[in-house]
């Protein structure tokens, strides 16, 4: 029965029940079988990468794509605590993106396995100081390789903010009540308060310092428009003027500069936070070879050039720095010599008493 026949019969009401059911069945089978067509079936053979939203952009995976024709499978998380909870609940990626300060904790929980760097040709080109980030080599075994690095600091609209001095205090400035936003995580949220409050070691606080941090966070809450993990939210809000300042990663700075929004990247007197993030191989990986392919591809110079020019994060590969135009580096606020930035500011380290801090943070966010 052709389409017009069908409609005519339907309108005239002469269609039999059997004919109608046949049509419905055909439609149903069609809809249900759409996901089964070739591409997805093939993709099931590919390894799975778990990472921050956005790292599925194809620019990161050129080497992988040239070998396998498609980018690896990708699943996104908002922050590593969320990823950790997901993995603990049974999710099994092959490789996961985490920052260096998380490594001891993940290794202790037994969810990651040592990496054999001889299987990663691109690892040899890593910037020297990124190959021995504290906490990532445990009992002589390397559990993590660095992919990228950057800063956590305040991104602000210099046309809307009157700055007396460059300080984290801007995030507590009542003049900008309702026009500030924070990152929703321990390392980039709670630690900001700890640094601003002058904790001796923000990553290993005494009980008094935790109380001080909590008070600061409580004081800050009514001034905030929202907590988020999405740089897209922050970029949109800063561009529209809904926010005047937010704690952000320097990717947001590069993105807004590209849109010619009048923003500045602060170097607070208390110190901006420097972070190094990278990749781990999961204990439960079903496709270990595939995981190595993903990791090596992310460490490749082409991924490095893409990440630095499009995202404004520093990359671990020395060759990428040779390949990229210095102008492009300066445009997104990266130094020519990576060591300048890596040696400045406060280096993110493993957080002690994480569970208590997380519970405290949840209470603060709920208004207590």
């Amino acid at each position, binding site marked *: 029965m052709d389409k017009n026949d069908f409609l005519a019969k339907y309108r005239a009401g002469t269609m039999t029940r059997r004919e109608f059911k046949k049509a419905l069945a055909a439609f149903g089978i069609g809809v249900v079988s759409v996901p089964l067509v070739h591409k997805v079936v093939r993709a099931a053979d590919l390894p799975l990468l778990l990472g921050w939203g956005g790292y599925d952009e194809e620019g990161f995976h050129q080497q992988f794509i040239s070998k396998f024709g498609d980018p690896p499978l990708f699943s996104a998380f908002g922050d590593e605590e969320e990823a950790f*909870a997901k993995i603990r609940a049974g999710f099994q990626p092959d490789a996961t993106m985490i920052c260096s300060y998380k490594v001891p904790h993940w290794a202790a929980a037994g969810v990651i396995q040592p990496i054999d760097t001889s299987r990663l040709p691109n690892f040899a080109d890593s910037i020297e100081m990124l190959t021995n980030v504290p906490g990532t080599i445990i009992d002589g075994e390397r559990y993590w390789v660095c992919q990228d690095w950057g800063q956590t600091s305040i991104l602000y609209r210099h046309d809307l903010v009157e700055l007396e001095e460059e300080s984290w205090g801007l995030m507590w400035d009542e003049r900008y009540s309702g026009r500030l936003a924070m990152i929703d995580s321990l390392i980039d949220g709670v630690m900001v308060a700890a640094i601003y409050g002058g904790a001796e070691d923000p990553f290993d606080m005494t009980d008094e310092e935790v109380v001080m941090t909590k008070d600061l966070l409580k004081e800050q809450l009514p001034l905030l428009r929202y907590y988020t993990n999405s740089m897209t939210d922050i970029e*949109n809000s800063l561009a529209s003027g809904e926010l005047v300042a937010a704690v952000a990663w320097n990717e947001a700075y590069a993105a807004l500069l590209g849109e010619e929004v009048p923003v500045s990247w602060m170097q607070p007197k208390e110190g901006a936070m420097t972070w190094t993030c990278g990749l781990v191989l999961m204990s439960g990986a079903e496709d270990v070879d595939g995981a190595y392919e993903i990791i090596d591809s992310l460490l490749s110079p082409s991924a490095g050039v893409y990440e630095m020019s499009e995202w404004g994060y520093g990359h671990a590969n020395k060759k990428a720095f040779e390949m990229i135009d210095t102008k492009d580096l300066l445009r997104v606020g990266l130094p020519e010599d990576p060591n300048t930035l890596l040696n400045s500011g406060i280096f993110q380290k493993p957080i002690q008493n994480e569970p208590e801090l*997380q519970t405290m943070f949840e*209470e603060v*966010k709920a208004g207590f």
Partner: protein
Amino acid sequence: MTEHAKVTVGVAAEPERLGLRVWVRALFLRSEQARGYALLSPTLIYMFLVLALPLGLLVTFSFWTQNYLDFDRSFTFTNYIMFFQKPIYPALLWKSIKMSGAVTLATVILAYPMAYFLAFRVKRAKMTWLILITVPFWTSYLLRVFAWKIILGYEGVINSGLKSIGLLENSLEFLLYNPFAVVITLAHAWAAFAILPIYVSLEKIDRSLLEAATDLGDGPMMRFLRVTLPLSSPGVIAASLFVFIPTVGDYVTPSLVGGTTGIMIGNIIQSMFGKANNWPMGGAIAVISMLSIALLICAFLWLIQRTKRLV
């Protein structure tokens, strides 16, 4: 004849098994209940596996404790005591109940006229109207929440619309990231669950009762209050329950449009099972929330029964 013989031989060979089968079959046919359960069994098994079992698990580990990574399986009331010791949990539960109450009220008030129109005014193509009402539900729940983010946002539809016609100079900031935004979004997201039951109860009302009321001198207003509204109350009650129960525990909507002030109990439960790595505490909060909601619903139904008797 030969066939008959064969059967007899078969029976003789396995008398016991056959006897048992016949006996079970007889029992089955005699008992209405057994047949009923057999008919229900696919659903029952399914419900047991995906509802009763996880619920039992939830209750079980709400009596455990968790030391970050490891469960301590000894029985304890710690989590329940903790719930009432810390002001945050009861207060948050109370806030969620109030917000859901507001959502329910808003949804029912907005849904009633729609259902009324559908039941009394629409004469032709009723099916089309009903389908039109469900159209927003063809997209994902998350997309609908995002749509509201776009409508209420700082540079959103409402703000930029009002600005472009000159009614507004600066964007209204109270539209998004607060409890108000959560209530609006939820009220829309659950609208169909309110419209449909109210529509059904209105549709069932005997039109001659309305005529009788008019004959006896009631105006349109009195007729509505004395005939239509009381007769549609089952629909309204069902709608209220459909909306209230699921919205108390919602966490996606508050986390997307609630900002720093619109947080609900669901967000805490979610973070206990996620970031905070404290499943037992999350379980205890969930169990207490469920019990509180159940008690509230019972009180609500009891109150309705009473008012009905008084009327």
